[in-house]
C-alpha cells in the first residue's frame, strides 16, 4: 500500500517515521570487476544518508538502481510503498536525482530548464510557477536565472542540477557526489543547501570523503567492492576505522 504524505507526517510526529525508501537485497553485475551485491537499507523522512566509498565501489550504480535508471538483477526498491518494478512512473514521481554529471542543456536558460524539469515531473502551471520561484530562491539562482546554462560556473551548474532534482518536492533526493569539483566555498554552499532540504526530505548523498559525509549526514553507509560494510549514525566512533580498514 502506498504511504501518503499525511501518514508520513503523522508517523513523524509520533516519532515512528515509516520508511520512504526501502532497498532490499539489490544486486547488479555490470562487468567482471564491477558489481553491487546484496545492498539493503531503508530511509525515513529527515534522514541524510552518506553513501561513502572509493571510486568504483558501487555508489553510483546503487543510486541509479534506487532512482529507476538501472534495473537491478535481483532485489527490489520501493518509494513511499510503491514498488519501482511494478509502478515505475509513480515511484519516480517521488524521487529527485542529481547524477555525478548534472543533466543540463547548455543552450537553455536556467529558468527555461527549471520549467521543463517541473513539467516533466507533472507540476501544473500554478504550482510550477510557485515552485520555480521557491527553488530559485532556495538554490540562490536569482542572479543567473536568465543566463544560458552553458555560460555558468561549475558551482552554479551544480546548483541548477540540484534545483531540477528538488523542484517537484520529492520525498527522496539522491545526490551523486554533488560537491565533486567544487572549490571550498562552493562546497560549503552546497552543504548548507543540503542541510536546508534535509528538514523535509530523505536524502542519500554519495561521496568518497569521510569528513564530508560526517559534516552533512546523520547516517553513514560504507560501501566497498559493491558490498555494504557498515551502516551507522554519523557520529559513530568506529566509522573511520571501518572505512580505512575496508579501503586499505
Amino acid at each position, binding site marked *: 500500500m502506498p504511504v501518503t504524505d499525511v501518514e508520513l507526517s503523522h508517523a513523524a510526529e509520533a516519532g515512528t517515521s515509516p520508511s520512504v525508501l526501502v532497498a532490499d537485497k539489490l544486486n547488479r553485475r555490470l562487468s567482471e570487476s564491477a558489481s553491487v551485491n546484496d545492498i539493503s537499507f531503508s530511509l525515513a523522512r529527515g534522514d541524510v544518508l552518506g553513501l561513502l566509498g572509493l571510486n568504483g565501489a558501487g555508489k553510483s*550504480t546503487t543510486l541509479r538502481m534506487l532512482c529507476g535508471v538501472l534495473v537491478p538483477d535481483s532485489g527490489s526498491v520501493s518509494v513511499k510503498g510503491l514498488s519501482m518494478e511494478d509502478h515505475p512512473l509513480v515511484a519516480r*514521481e517521488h524521487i529527485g536525482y542529481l547524477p555525478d554529471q548534472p543533466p543540463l*542543456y547548455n543552450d*537553455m536558460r536556467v529558468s527555461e530548464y527549471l520549467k521543463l524539469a517541473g513539467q516533466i515531473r507533472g507540476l501544473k502551471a500554478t504550482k510550477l510557477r510557485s515552485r520555480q520561484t521557491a527553488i530559485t530562491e532556495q538554490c540562490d539562482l536569482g542572479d543567473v536565472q536568465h543566463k544560458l546554462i552553458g555560460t555558468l560556473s561549475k558551482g552554479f551548474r551544480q546548483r541548477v542540477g540540484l534545483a531540477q532534482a528538488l523542484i517537484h518536492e520529492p520525498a527522496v533526493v539522491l545526490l551523486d557526489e554533488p560537491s565533486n569539483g567544487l572549490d571550498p566555498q562552493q562546497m560549503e554552499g552546497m552543504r548548507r543547501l543540503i542541510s536546508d532540504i534535509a528538514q523535509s526530505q530523505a536524502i542519500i548523498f554519495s561521496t568518497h570523503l569521510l569528513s564530508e559525509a560526517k559534516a552533512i549526514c546523520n547516517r553513514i553507509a560504507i560501501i566497498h567492492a559493491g558490498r555494504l560494510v557498515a551502516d551507522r549514525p554519523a557520529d559513530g566512533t568506529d566509522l573511520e576505522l571501518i572505512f580505512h580498514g575496508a579501503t586499505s
Partner: protein
Amino acid sequence: MIRVVARHECASLLRNAQTWIMAAIMAALFGYLFLKQLEAFITVQGQLATQDHPTGLSGFMAVRYLEPLSLAFTLVAPLFAMRSFSEEFRQHTYALWQSSPVSTRALVVGKFLGVLSVLSLLVLLAAGMLLIMRVFIPIDLLLTLSATFGLLLCAAACASCGLFFSSLTQHSLIAIVASLSLLLISWMLGSANFGTLPLQALQDLSIAVHLRGFFQGYIQTRDIAFFTLMMTLFLGLTIIRLDALRQTGR
C-alpha cells in the same frame, strides 16, 4: 507529457544553428527547383496543349518539382532527428528523462512529433510555393494536397528511421550515416530491375515506389500503410532500445 517532450524537442531544434542552416539550404533548393520547373512548364506548355489529355501546371509541378523534393526530405529528415537521442547521451542529459516519470513511449513519440513539427514547416514551405500561384491561376488543389501529404509521410517515416539510429549511439555522425544508408538502399530498391518474382517483392520496400501515387494524385491505402508501418516499426524499435538501456546500463 507527450506535448511537453514535443515542445522541448521542437524548441531545442529551433535553438540550434544547424537547423537554420539546413532549412536555408532546403529553402534555396525549393526556390531553385520551383523556378526551374516553372520555366520548363512555360517552354513546353504549347506542346502539352496538343495532347489528348494535357498535363496542367499542378500535375507538371507535382511530378517535376515536389516529387524530387521527396529525395531531399529523405536525406534531411534523419539529419533533423540525428541529435534527438545521441546528443542526450553525449551530453549526459538522458538521465533527466530516465529518472523522471515520463514513459519511454511518451518520450519517443514526443521527440518524434517535435522533429516532425519542424519538418512540417519545411514541407509547407515547399508546397506553399506552388499554392501561392493560386492567386494568379487555377491550381488543382487536391493533387497538390495529395503530393504534400506524400512528402509529409515520407519525411515522417525517414525521421522515425533517424530517431531509431540516434538511439543506438552517442555519435550523431554514425547515426546519420547508418540511417542514410538504409534509406538510400530503400530508394534504390525502387529503381532496381529484379527479374524473378521473389526478388520483385523487394520493390515493395522502396520508399520511391510507394510515393509515386501521391504525386499523381491518387492516394492508395497500401502506400499509407507502408509509411505508417515504417514509422511504427522504427518508433517501436526505438522504445525497445531505450527500455533495454535500463537493463544493460550502457
